[in-house]
């Protein structure tokens, strides 16, 4: 059964955040813990649902930067502390990597929709496909489930792909505390951790009957990885509805700039990832050869009424 991503009622606010720790691993994967103050405008505690994201102010002495979208990997409602994992891939994450313990910044949160709840259906029929730091929203979903009382039997299966063991090392205790080991499939490009190969190759190596029972697949990772998952899902996960959480470049995250759009399947119309997503049913989106089609939506406006602008139409307003 297909479920809709949830339009959440999470209150939106601006939060002062303070760095609890910001550690790096030898592979360049960073683990940042932030403590959230009460919201500036509504004076309420921060609240998030897995799939949603926050926009983090990473400006430094260089001045203007767009805020950066991050998903929390873990959220402790009691201490109001949330964890982010990130790689240094550009100027924003480079600035973030220099953050010191005690340093403060600002986050706008929580934005976007959330993964569908599988209430009434057993979450063990859900498979989570994570690539690198795309793990964050998926493992938060598992954590939310544990808080709702999911037992080992109920837990989803997680396939987690990384470049090498070192990249995943610091995350393994957290993963193992949430996902039973028999439901945890690890894979790495160099074979140093678990199966050698990427997430799709790891799925291909499983017995088809083991995969046939999955009704939902939640995917988050680099675009080529999500693309491969979406393209192969009809064969490998024949009974699963596939959802992706997109990690697009987002200048504003608030639906104001129209900078993050992707094409909608069928109509081809551009959809704002930050407002309509970031969680989408994969079949809702226009996919190209290597990933999301970011060009094909041009000219797709048939859905809207035509307004005559020629002289011959004069008087016909």
């Amino acid at each position, binding site marked *: 059964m297909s479920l809709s991503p949830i339009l959440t009622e999470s*209150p*939106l*606010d*601006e939060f002062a955040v303070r760095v609890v720790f910001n550690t790096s691993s030898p592979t360049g994967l960073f683990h940042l813990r932030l403590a959230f103050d009460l919201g*500036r*405008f509504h004076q309420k505690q921060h609240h998030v649902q897995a799939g949603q994201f926050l926009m983090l*102010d990473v*400006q430094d002495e*260089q*001045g*203007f*930067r*767009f*805020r950066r979208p991050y998903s929390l990997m873990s959220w402790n409602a009691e201490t109001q502390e949330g964890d982010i994992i990130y790689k240094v891939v550009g*100027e924003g994450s480079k600035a973030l990597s220099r953050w010191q313990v005690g340093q403060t910044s600002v986050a*706008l949160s929580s*934005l976007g929709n959330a993964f569908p709840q599988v209430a009434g259906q057993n979450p063990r029929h859900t498979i989570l496909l994570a690539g690198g730091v795309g793990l964050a929203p998926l493992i938060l979903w598992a954590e939310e489930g544990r808080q709702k009382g999911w037992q080992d039997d109920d837990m989803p299966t997680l396939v987690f792909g990384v470049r090498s063991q070192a990249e995943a090392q610091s995350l393994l205790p957290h993963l193992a505390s949430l996902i039973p080991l028999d439901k945890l499939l690890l894979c790495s490009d160099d074979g140093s951790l678990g199966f050698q190969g990427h997430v799709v190759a790891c799925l291909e190596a499983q017995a088809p009957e083991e995969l046939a029972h999955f009704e939902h697949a939640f995917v988050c990772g680099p675009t080529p990885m999500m693309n491969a998952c979406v393209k192969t899902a009809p064969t490998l996960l024949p009974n699963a509805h596939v959802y992706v959480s997109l990690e697009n*470049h987002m*200048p*504003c995250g*608030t*639906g*104001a*700039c*129209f*900078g993050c*759009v992707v094409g909608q399947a069928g109509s*081809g*119309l*551009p959809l704002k990832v930050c*407002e309509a997503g970031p969680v989408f049913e994969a079949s809702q989106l226009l996919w190209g050869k290597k990933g999301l089609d*970011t*060009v094909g*939506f*041009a*000219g*797709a*406006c048939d*859905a*809207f*009424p*035509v*307004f*005559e*602008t*020629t*002289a011959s*139409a*004069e008087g016909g*307003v």
Partner: protein
Amino acid sequence: MSDFYTKFQIKIGSLELASPILNASGTFNPSVFSRLFSLKSHLGAIVTKTVTPNASSGNPQQRTVELPGIGMLNSIGLQGKGIIASMDVDIPQYYGCHDMPVILSISADSEIAFQRMSAYIEAHANRPYLQGIEVNVSCPNVHAGGALFGASPQWVEKAVHAVRQETSLPLWVKLTPNTTEVVAVAQASVDAGADALTAINTVLGSHIDIRRRTPSLAKVSGGYSGQGIKPIAIHHVLNIAKALPNTPIVGVGGIRRAEDVLEFLMAGATAVQVGTHCFSDPAVFVDLVQDLDTWCLAEGVASLQELVGVALP
């Protein structure tokens, strides 16, 4: 802040606004921003994203480039649903529901398209919140080989005249800096019936991705905005204010702090718009109101209107 003090009230022609601080077209999402703070208590009016006669899906990705420290480039491409669907859905549902004035930004690629769109707006203008039109002339003129409409005083005069003859709504023209004739275009706008001038739209710019060895934007060039263009905007506001002392100016370009607002007012702007900074800090409006209020108290300024044009040479 519950409401503006009288010190924030301004008049742009016949239009009275509770504050000189507005948003720039295409940089503001009322439904999300209003979840943070009361729009009515922090902005004088909402300016809509530019509406075109027909729906447009805009430009391909990549549409934006961050320029650290100075601003950004964009080539969004006026994505939208077209005037009919916008008037039916977006304008009432996103903009018209905040109990405050809405300025409708419009653009078209020919004089006749401007005229017909204005007639359509006028025929549907029985909405109290719709209190003005801002004509965006930073688009290609199909009857001039695709050259920028706003670059020529003659073309702008025709476009503004086409709008003016169809509507009695207050009319602002948003000027492009991408011409050597900014003041002449401003004059032509006023001659054709504009009530106010918005200065400035984005400055043409480009950026190369040195890793891919290609332009970063799919459309190669786009509009440069943000704090780096503030001196250019101030320059144009000064020149227009000097040439057209009786025409209100809405200053826009690189505003992020109260000091920037004060600069624009002193240069001759009656009101201002905040654009790019909305992307990196939606709460900027709250800070601007608080900081301007504090500044006025410290300086003994009873009304921001006192400051308009005081720096004009």
